[in-house]
């Protein structure tokens, strides 16, 4: 594909940037392995979802404007998160509904934006993987990815290509984990019960590792599993797909 | 003083940014009402003849209706008597003042005491006709009128409905068409009886700990007797 490799702008997402940079590097590795030229625009921070979901449309718009500007010109924009990709793809155009010029640019960005696994599987149709991961895993379908972007089969198809992975579906894979961005801070008791139910479901699946595509949910579930002393590791699916599982799982220490 | 009616219609029109519909704009909804037509109709009910009857029976049985099929009206009393005996039920029946029910030779079954008329306190078994059966969901369509008091469908503990195979429609839409055709002359819309009851199984509730129980306020059991009128 030399000379015509697609130019991808990586939207790292604030949580990956701050909490688990290794997911960002896994994404870069996967995209490059799939023949993409990857650029990480320095002007990015966050997609603005905290503001948007809190009704602060003005700040959400201001942040969205910056994201739109920072990612102009890429063939594709990819985020290792269904939630952030969903914000860009579904909600940016809504935010600018009254402003034709911005709406056009938002639509244009929305068209080019993809969640990581769906980009690899549905757009690039990546089939082969060199990765190997010997574990029984279960998959949590994160809400925005599943319902805003229909990310359901893509991560499973990709995991199917990883040697050693055994997928044990849980009954509540599509049930919200109770993270909900600011929800878990505003209503910690309710959120705590929800994530506890999620932990029950994960444990019942008998998997050694829970995978998912959104760090917010994964931090939440990992935090609860750890508090319960459950021996289930939690990782972002990109780590497994990229064969970058050397470091500790989410919430696990080095010693 | 403006009436509530004017205020409400005014609010609606204000929100919709318009005045009352012009004759031209009203043509669409007007037509929709006049030429009532089916929307998407599930294929399930698109079956004919024996298959349709079979579907009706299967769907009715799924919701705890008992269905008996007989070859002629003359066999109805026997089936009813057997049903009542099997369930240890009283044999005094109150039948709707429906000419079709009067044609049934009840007296052949000496164990049954059948009276025709409207319901009175204490009727334990009610017998009614039905305008139609709807195979799609095993549903009965009953209409009120001098020959069919609505309360008889609800007050007795046991409801027995007698239906001919020819009255079984595949879908709700067909049953509505049947009702429209059966309706009285008179102003448009006047085909509608005072009450149309669509009944699918005996009364039930799950309001106590989500436990399903039959016989909440209406009948505890429903027997449908289907008389074959389509030949052998």
């Amino acid at each position, binding site marked *: 594909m030399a000379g015509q490799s697609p130019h991808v702008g990586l939207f790292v997402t604030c949580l990956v940037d701050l909490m*688990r940079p290794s997911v960002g590097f896994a994404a870069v590795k996967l995209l490059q392995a799939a023949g993409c030229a990857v650029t990480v625009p320095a002007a990015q921070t966050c997609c603005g979802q905290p503001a948007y979901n809190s009704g602060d449309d003005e700040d959400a718009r201001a*942040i969205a404007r910056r994201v739109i500007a920072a990612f102009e010109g890429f063939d594709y924009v990819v985020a290792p998160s269904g939630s952030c990709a969903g914000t860009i793809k579904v909600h940016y155009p809504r935010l600018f509904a009254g402003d034709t010029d911005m709406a056009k640019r938002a639509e244009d960005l929305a068209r080019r934006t993809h969640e990581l696994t769906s980009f690899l599987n549905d757009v690039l149709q990546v089939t082969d993987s060199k990765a190997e991961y010997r574990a029984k895993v279960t998959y949590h379908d994160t*809400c925005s990815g599943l319902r805003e972007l229909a990310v359901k089969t893509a991560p499973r198809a990709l995991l199917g290509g990883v040697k050693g992975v055994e997928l044990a579906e849980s009954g509540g894979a599509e049930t919200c984990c109770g993270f909900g961005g600011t*929800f878990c801070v505003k209503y910690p008791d*309710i959120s705590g019960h929800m994530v506890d139910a999620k932990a029950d479901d994960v444990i019942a699946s008998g998997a050694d590792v829970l995978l998912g595509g959104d760090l917010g949910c994964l931090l939440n579930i990992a935090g609860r599993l750890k508090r319960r002393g459950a021996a289930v590791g939690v990782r972002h699916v990109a780590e497994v797909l990229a064969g970058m599982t050397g470091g500790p799982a989410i919430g696990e220490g080095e010693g | 003083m403006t009436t509530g009616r004017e205020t409400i219609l005014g*609010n609606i029109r204000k929100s919709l940014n318009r005045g009352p519909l012009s004759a031209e704009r009203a043509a669409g909804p007007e037509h929709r009402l006049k030429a009532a037509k089916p929307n998407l109709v*599930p294929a399930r009910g698109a079956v004919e003849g024996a298959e349709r009857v079979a579907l009706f029976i299967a769907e009715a049985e799924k919701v705890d209706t008992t269905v008996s099929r007989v070859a002629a009206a003359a066999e109805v009393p026997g089936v009813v008597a057997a049903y009542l005996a099997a369930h240890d039920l009283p044999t005094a029946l109150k039948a709707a003042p429906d000419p079709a029910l009067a044609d049934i030779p009840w007296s052949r079954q000496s164990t049954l005491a059948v009276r025709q008329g409207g319901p009175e306190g204490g009727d334990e078994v009610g017998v009614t006709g039905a305008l139609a059966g709807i195979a799609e969901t095993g549903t009965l369509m009953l209409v009120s009128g001098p020959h069919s*008091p609505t309360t008889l469908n609800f007050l007795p503990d046991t409801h027995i409905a007698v239906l001919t195979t020819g009255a079984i429609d595949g879908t709700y839409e067909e049953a509505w068409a049947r009702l429209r055709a059966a309706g009285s002359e008179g102003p448009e819309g006047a085909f509608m009886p005072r009450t149309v009851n*669509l009944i699918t199984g005996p009364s039930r509730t799950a309001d106590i700990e989500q436990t399903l129980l039959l016989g909440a306020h209406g009948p505890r059991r429903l027997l449908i007797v289907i008389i074959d009128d389509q030949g052998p």
Partner: protein
Amino acid sequence: MESTSRTFEDNARKALIDADLRRALTKLGHGFPVKRRMAVERLPEFEGLRDAARAIKEDVLENLDFYLERFEERVVEQGGQVHWCVDAAEANQAVLAICQEAGARTVTKSKSMIGEEIAINEHLEANGITPVETDLGEYIIQLRGEPPSHIIAPAIHLSMDQVTETFRQCHDGLAADRELSEPRDLLEEARAILRQKFLAADVGITGANMLIAETGSVAVVTNEGNADLTMTLPRVHVVIASLEKVVPTLEDATTILRVLARSATGQETSVYTTFASGPRRPGDSDGPEEFHVVLLDNGRGAMLGGDFHDVLRCIRCGACLNHCPVYGTIGGHAYGWVYSGPIGAVLSPGLIGLEEAGHLPNASTLCGKCEEVCPMRIPLPKMLRHWRTRQFDRDLVPPASRAALKGWAFLAKRPALYRAATGLAMRLLGALGRRRGAFRRMPLAGGWTAARDLPAPEGATFMAQWSRRKGARP
């Protein structure tokens, strides 16, 4: 009814430690949603029917005035009356006037969410008329003086033992040692008592699932048959319905009915669907002598064409409650008013005020499950966001949250500053958390760490590492 939505957080906390409620909610989660899925899988046209149902209601809303006037014409032709009521007070007054005119002492009622919305029972009682709820669940909560906790299963929060206790307390004149240990015993007792009430009532009040413009009919759906006894036995039948309930034709009603029960309880159809058109006719031996439709606006007309337009398509099936992970965790009472779950969180702020119901649109993860299952394809999460925007614009957000948000947004708009601040913080937290990998406690994150550990960041941020790597490479 008095709202307790302001104390939503406390209500929820109580709900979280109510063992009976927890049991009921677990059962609910394994009940309706599973049955719905099976019903949907059995009907290949289900998604198409959702589209058709939605299209019907959109046509209705666009021509709402027209269809309502047609509906009224037909009702009047058939000898009935329509009472147009702008708000709850007018509707209550209209119902009371009809009851007083009829000299009513007791009225039977079949479940009506509009009745709950306007608090008709309280109004009748205050005027010396005794309303008796006849839906079993509704009857139980009426005896207990509670609001419904679910729009189609009002007593879903109660255990059988609680119902037994209520019946022993409230049903005078029965043997104290009577058997009430099975749901069947309870049902039989209620059935016998309510049968007498049905026969004695002067007026019967029902809600309406739909109003049919073509025929001037009122469609009422139940499984128990209580609405039929309520509307057929007393001398007067009063229907209370909100104006968006109107649909054009019987065929249109049928389309909506096909998605209603399947979405609600997972039944193919409810046991009783009744179309009532006017009072008793010549030759009829039963049926009411008077037929009244009390038509309520209560702010709905004003919602047309606005941010909350779509919610007017709601058919009150309860699917959004049955599938909501938050409702499934706290139940209906925590919401503090008549409507609960996602539909309640959308409706309540409009009906009792955003100040009063401000928590409700926030108490959602916006997971989107409600929209996924809503037969009328109502974008409930989008509506919750509309309320949040209004709250923010009207400065109804708690100052601390607002300050935190504003602080975050300030940084998010300034990448260089953002990088400096976050880079430092993450390196610090990363170092502190490296050994254990997670924090058990964290200042300012007490909510989070009450139930779960806070996974520690890896250390240097992605952006810091990336710019270093890029610098190292040509």
